[in-house]
């Protein structure tokens, strides 16, 4: 559970919080499983904090420092995370539905089972890479042991391990399924569920963090069907 002293400092606002962080560089803030009522958190320093299960829906976290922050299972629905620093953050099972992640630094984040429905990831190129890497790691699960914490990740090693599997290789593709606009919630949920279960039948894994985008511009490229 959250440290009540840390919660009290946060209730004083971003300036007071950041000052406290400067004065207590060794402290690891514990705001886990707390309902954070302060929503104006732009520029806050939450680096390395424990925010597991924290409630932050709709929070203004623009430019926040969330590097190596544990946000496992946190509620970040419709949070404004533009230009936030999320490098190395743990976002497993985090709800980022409708979150604005434009130009956020998502280097090395763990997005396993994170909800990204309607999230805007424009300009955060690392997001796709992290998702893709997670996909590979999920496929590789059980075949090889990988220390994800290693800075120098050796893709050659991964490739060598993966190609031993009968139907898995390091050659990856992205499947894009374009839906009508507007589309009913029911239809989109049924389609996502069907994709997830059918694809998962051969991998024993749910789709690792499928990206759902609403109102995206049409882009050329790829191999089209229908």
């Amino acid at each position, binding site marked *: 559970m959250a440290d009540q002293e840390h919660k009290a400092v946060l209730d004083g606002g971003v300036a007071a919080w950041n000052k406290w962080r400067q004065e207590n560089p060794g402290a690891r803030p514990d705001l886990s499983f707390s309902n954070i009522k302060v929503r104006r958190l732009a520029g806050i320093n939450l680096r390395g904090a424990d925010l597991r299960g924290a409630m932050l829906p709709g929070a203004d976290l623009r430019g926040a420092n969330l590097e190596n922050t544990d946000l496992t299972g946190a509620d970040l629905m419709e949070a404004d995370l533009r230009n936030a620093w999320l490098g190395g953050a743990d976002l497993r099972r985090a709800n980022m539905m409708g979150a604005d992640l434009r130009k956020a630094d998502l280097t090395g984040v763990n997005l396993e089972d994170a909800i990204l429905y309607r999230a805007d990831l424009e300009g955060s190129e690392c997001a796709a890479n992290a998702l893709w890497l997670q996909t590979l790691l999920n496929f590789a699960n059980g075949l090889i042991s990988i220390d994800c914490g290693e800075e120098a990740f050796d893709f050659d090693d991964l490739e060598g391990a993966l190609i031993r599997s009968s139907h898995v290789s390091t050659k990856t593709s*992205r499947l894009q399924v374009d839906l009508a606009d507007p589309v009913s919630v029911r239809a989109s949920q049924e389609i996502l569920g069907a994709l997830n279960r059918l694809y998962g039948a*051969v991998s024993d894994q749910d789709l690792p963090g499928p990206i759902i985008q609403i109102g995206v511009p049409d882009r050329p490229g790829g191999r*089209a069907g229908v």
Partner: protein
Amino acid sequence: MNRISFSGSSEVIRDFVDRFLESAGTRFDPLQETIDKYRDTLLEIASQKRIDLRQLEKVVDFLVACDMPEDEIERFFSSNDGRLENLACDAGILESYIEDGTIENFSILDESL
């Protein structure tokens, strides 16, 4: 436009698209291996449980194409958890949404290391 996208092994994505997206509205021909090994069983399941044989064939053909071991595929048949029926239902859902235009398009983008 609204879009669902995800990444995966190119081979699996290709096998997936062939069976569950590109086959909509067209004749579906399972792999010979699927026919030889599983056609009789699938006919029986389709008859007993009143499931669309075409969708059952797509699901099992996908498992075969992805080199799922035979004993694992047979577990789909022997278990009574309804998983195979649900997957066939999912295949039918995708096909119906393609046919009614809810799924407007699909594409495969190559990604490389």
